[in-house]
């Protein structure tokens, strides 16, 4: 099994998400995360799909994506040097005795507190998957009440 980040440029039109997700569900491919957003071209969207599978299946996934009529381009980020980032919002229990410790972790990881209440903090963190997982693991003991993750987005690194 290997984890691949696929950047998929698609025509921005109704049903395109369903074509992609239907391809994955219909053929039993796994989706770890899927992120969709606009690009600089108004009628083109970028989907970033993270999937794990044996290499032969990854090859099938890429070919099947390319076969979809609404897909313009598929890039396997694993074949390039790429920057990968994910953002997460975490709502964490924060009582008087734990607040300072939580803020220290926020500081160490260079996260941000984006909302505060008497007994909880909402924290914004971003980074590659390992970093995001590490923050979540560290904050778990305080009690994470809610979590929202964007899934991975990625760009090829500039040529040096």
């Amino acid at each position, binding site marked *: 099994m290997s984890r691949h980040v696929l950047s998929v440029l698609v025509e921005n039109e109704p049903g395109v998400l369903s*074509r992609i997700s239907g391809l994955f569900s*219909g053929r039993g491919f796994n989706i770890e995360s899927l992120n969709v957003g606009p690009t600089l071209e108004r009628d083109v969207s970028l989907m970033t799909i993270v999937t794990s599978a044996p290499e*032969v299946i990854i*090859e099938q996934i890429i070919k099947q994506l390319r*076969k979809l*009529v*609404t897909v*313009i381009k598929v890039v396997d980020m694993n074949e390039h040097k790429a920057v990968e980032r994910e953002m997460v919002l975490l709502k964490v229990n924060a009582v008087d005795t734990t607040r300072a410790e939580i803020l220290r972790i926020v500081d160490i990881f260079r996260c941000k507190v984006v909302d505060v209440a008497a007994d909880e903090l909402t924290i914004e963190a971003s980074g590659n998957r390992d970093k995001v997982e590490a923050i979540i693991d560290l904050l778990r003991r305080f009690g994470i009440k809610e979590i929202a993750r964007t899934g991975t987005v990625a760009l090829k690194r500039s040529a040096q």
Partner: protein
Amino acid sequence: MELTGAQILLESLKKEGVDSIFGFPGGAVIDIYDELPKHPELKHYLVRHEQGAIHAADGYARATGKVGVCLVTSGPGATNAVTGIANAYLDSIPVVIFTGQVPSPLIGNDAFQEVDIVGITRPCTKHNYLVKDITKLAQTIAEAFYIARTGRPGPVLVDLPKDVLQQVTPYSYPKSVTMRSYNPNTKPNSKQLKRALDLICKADKPLFYVGGGVISANAHEELTWLARTLKVPVTATLMGLGAFPGNDDLWLGMLGMHGTFAANQAVQECDLLIAVGARFDDRVTGKLDTFAPNATVIHVDVDPTSIRKNVSVDVPIVSDCMQALGGMKELMEKGEAGKGKCKVHKQWLTQIAAWKADHPLTYNGGDNPEIIKPQAVVETIYQLTKGDAIITTEVGQNQMWAAQFYNYHTPRTLLTSGGLGTMGFGFPAAIGAQVAFPDKLVIDVAGDGSIQMCIQEMATAVCYGLPVKIVILNNGYLGMVRQWQELFYNKNYCATCMDYAPDFVLLAKAYGAEGFRVTDPKKVKSTLQKAFAHPGPVIVDIRVAKEENVYPMVPAGASLSEMLLV
């Protein structure tokens, strides 16, 4: 000039060279039907069920190589066509399906006869469209035909809301289509072609394994030239029958679950397998790990997803089969490969001849004066037609016998539901083929079970004077399922006995067609002759051996070497 959506549709069909439409009207498409009589170049065939319309369009496409066209209404009209759309999808048949849709303001409101047909057919079309803007209608139709016929062909559905059909806009039809997101690669890499030829020349035991891709690319002549010049034997999938002459010495017959002994043995023993336009389907390969265990594999296919999907490939060639085989031929003619440097494979051909002689396709009891053998019926059809007919089949035993005991010499003479295995396909497909070739003999080899799935199209055949011949191999069973029950389920014949079938002769007559029944083996030939000479549609109800099995058989999941023989 400003035209309505309905007018744009019909004008565009004419631009695409469409001459026949198979359809069924309804509320959402009345505007199209209102306009249709003003376009005599477009002949509409009113079917009796939408499944008949899509199969007929599919049969028309298979027989001609052109894009078939089907027109149905929204809701149930569209859903009734879904089986046939999936059928065309799995066999890569170019069809464009126009479905009516409720007016766009009502979409999503559960309106009367509303269904999200674009959503439903997304996984079983090559592509589909919902046209919400009339100014994009002509462009969409052009794209639909372009996508359906290019690359690996397939069905494309265009959903037409009623208000779009009624609005008006200036009309011009695009002269050509270019799409940034759809550019099928059809040209082979010439280095790969050369590598393939070198491998063929060096091989001791090469084998062509060809499929429907050779037929859809019209590459049969190139295949035949290469096989004969290089002396490489040929086997084909069900979909590939007709791609190579069925009476050639190099012909091995079909391979796979009900393939010939020689074909399956050749696959298991070959040292080079040249797969062309075939996709290593489970019915062909049997147990994958033991399939062609000694072979280097060359795989030519226009669809990159077919390559390395099921088996690993040594020389992948993503290309239209015509371009690839034609390219190899060219290389040989230029003397850049092949010529004079090739092995003759003499031992291999001797071995194959021995397999053919030892285990030919056969059956017991062909000389029984009491019981008609279904295989003998198919053989008789072949004797009478000499292969000069279009054979369609239903699905099951009738289909396998039609594949085994009839020699197909030219492409597009066997129209059969290969991938989806759709019972009820054969008769409407025969109607579509007969529309395309009014003077050809078109025969549906049917079973008593399958024929009842689209029997309502008798009215269509009679109404339009389409002289399709239906030959029912009537054994009173859903024979293929019964065969599996006999062999693998302790003869538990649950729900496979079809005792309460109609009287097919009376049924033919009730529709205004001709009907014959045969119970005596001696009368099979004369009755078929009479039926084939009859100017209108005929049902020939032939009472055949009830518990006859299709052999050879490779049990599902077994290796091709483990064949059950007669």
